[in-house]
């Protein structure tokens, strides 16, 4: 597995499409740091860096938005042709004739992808913080560093989900193009379509919204349906983690933002926020595990013809 891991890792960084994606995301992330200085000063929240990562003042997309849009594509780029390209090249049967287990091939490739994502996320994060420090002359506080590291790990888990999804597609679909299209289709479906689906389903289950209780039930159904999507989990988790005030509440009970702010205006420590997003991380990991299981079941017993 070690051999496969290192080869795949080298391959990832040598691929033009990956470097292109990486360059694009890098530009986007650094650009997101060039927010309007004055606006930031007037906002004046306690956690400067957390604010910086989520604000859109003077930039097209915040760093968080940029990652949640383009991150999945990086994950898919790394995985969509991992198994089927070996098959079409005819290298799969040659590799599997060597003394390696089949799961090592899969695991080696997955871990190489995961490691690549880790490098990408942390180097982007460090670059972003570096640019911000240079511009504003402010270092992040200890509490912020903790939150940012937590944010990094959630982002990796989120991207790893898309990697696992694309690799599953690459096992089931012999054609790399089909696999890429299906992965991107699922990404759009899971990330964007589910929002509409959630509200429609909530309308069906709770048709008449009369009093506050109905409203709360409607919102709950919508929320839980939406949580099928890792996109939703990611935005909830990062929202909680990057906003220490909202971190006190899971914003699940149909409480409006204003009421929440009125109720609570003192930030919570990073450890509390991390505790709140723990379920989100576990669910994302479980989704990854489920995809890997499906892949294993298919790949382990499959016939490998040249």
């Amino acid at each position: 597995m070690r051999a496969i891991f290192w080869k795949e890792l080298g391959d990832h960084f040598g691929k033009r499409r990956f470097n292109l994606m990486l360059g694009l995301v890098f530009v986007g992330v650094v650009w997101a740091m060039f927010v309007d200085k004055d606006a930031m000063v007037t906002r004046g929240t306690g956690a400067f860096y957390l604010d910086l990562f989520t604000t859109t003042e003077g930039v097209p997309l915040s760093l968080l938005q940029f990652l949640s849009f383009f991150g999945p594509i990086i994950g898919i780029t790394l995985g969509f042709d991992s198994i089927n390209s070996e098959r079409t090249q005819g290298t799969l049967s040659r590799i599997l004739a060597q003394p390696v287990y089949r799961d090592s091939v899969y695991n080696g490739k997955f871990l190489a992808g995961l490691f690549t994502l880790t490098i990408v996320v942390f180097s982007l994060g460090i670059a972003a913080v570096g640019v911000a420090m240079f511009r504003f002359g402010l270092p992040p506080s200890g509490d912020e560093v903790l939150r940012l590291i937590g944010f990094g790990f959630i982002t990796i888990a989120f991207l790893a989900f898309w990697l696992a999804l694309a690799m599953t597609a690459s096992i089931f679909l012999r054609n790399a193009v089909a696999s890429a299209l299906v992965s991107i289709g699922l990404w759009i479906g899971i990330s964007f379509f589910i929002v509409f689906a959630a509200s429609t389903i909530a309308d069906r289950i709770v048709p008449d919204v009369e009093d506050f209780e109905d409203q709360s039930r409607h919102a709950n159904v919508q929320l839980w349906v939406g949580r099928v999507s890792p996109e939703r989990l990611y935005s909830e988790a990062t929202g909680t983690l990057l906003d220490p005030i909202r971190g006190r509440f899971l914003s699940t009970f149909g409480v409006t933002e204003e009421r929440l702010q009125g109720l609570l205006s003192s930030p919570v420590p990073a450890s509390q926020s991390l505790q709140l997003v723990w379920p989100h991380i576990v669910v994302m990991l479980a989704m990854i595990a489920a995809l890997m299981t499906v892949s294993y079941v298919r790949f382990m017993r499959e016939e490998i013809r040249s």
Partner: protein
Amino acid sequence: MSALLVEAEGLVKAYGDFLAVDGLDLRLGEGEVYGFLGPNGSGKSTTILMMLGLTEPTAGTVKVVGHNPTREPLEVKRQVGYLPESVGFYSDMSGRSNLLYTADLNNMRLSDAKARIDELLGMVELTDAMNQPVGQYSRGMRQRLGLADVLLKRPRVIILDDPTLGLDPTGIQWLLGIIEELSTNQGISVFLSSHQLHEVQQVCHRVGIMSHGKIVLEGTIAELTEQTASGGFGLVLEVLGGGDELMTTLAALPAVTACNRVGNEIVLQSGADVRAQATAAVIASGASLLGASSENRTLEEIYLRYFAGQES
């Protein structure tokens, strides 16, 4: 004969209702070159896949170097080299780095691997092209690189799936020379599949002819030749009608050693001249005898005859 390296018993592989391999028995001894012959689609590749654990047998057992390839794949793959039907390499990597990767997968030490790779690239005459990307290699060069790849781990057995496919006559002669050298000088057993009998018969100690998932003829070339050419009489009867009963009658005639039917043709092998009895038997059975000819066939003709009726 010493230890058996490949041992298959009653091997079956079914795809739905279709039996690709149908109750196959196979043995490969130490240092032997076995020619596994048959037309395309007769189940040769499927058998090889089962020997390597790349697909699971539906029934029966196969043991390679004493291990079950499905249960203990690593034990098998450590000692067996496999050259797939169309061998693939990473086209953007050089021939040499492709081999280095294989060595890495085999946990070879780097210094050892490098020396071995240089030696093998010399043997397959690719030293000049070793730093070129494989994408620029010709079909013959890839095949040669494939052979180097197979030999890298110092296998006890090599399994070559149709290695002569797509090679020019010089390439084939060269490949056969290498196979002969490997078996006589290095004691490597070779399991060689092909659909061209005449190409491989010169190097094979033993051949098995496969048809519809079964081995229909097996033995050394000498045995088969004797059986089919000099060791008796061959009689071909062209018969319309006549069922299993006729076949039993014919097989029961004195000195008849083999009796096979393909379409309208019944081929009889016998130790004595049975032309009179055989034709009488056909007519007595009520079938029409359209023609009869006695001939002594070469192995090649038998082979071709077997497969003439199979394409349909």
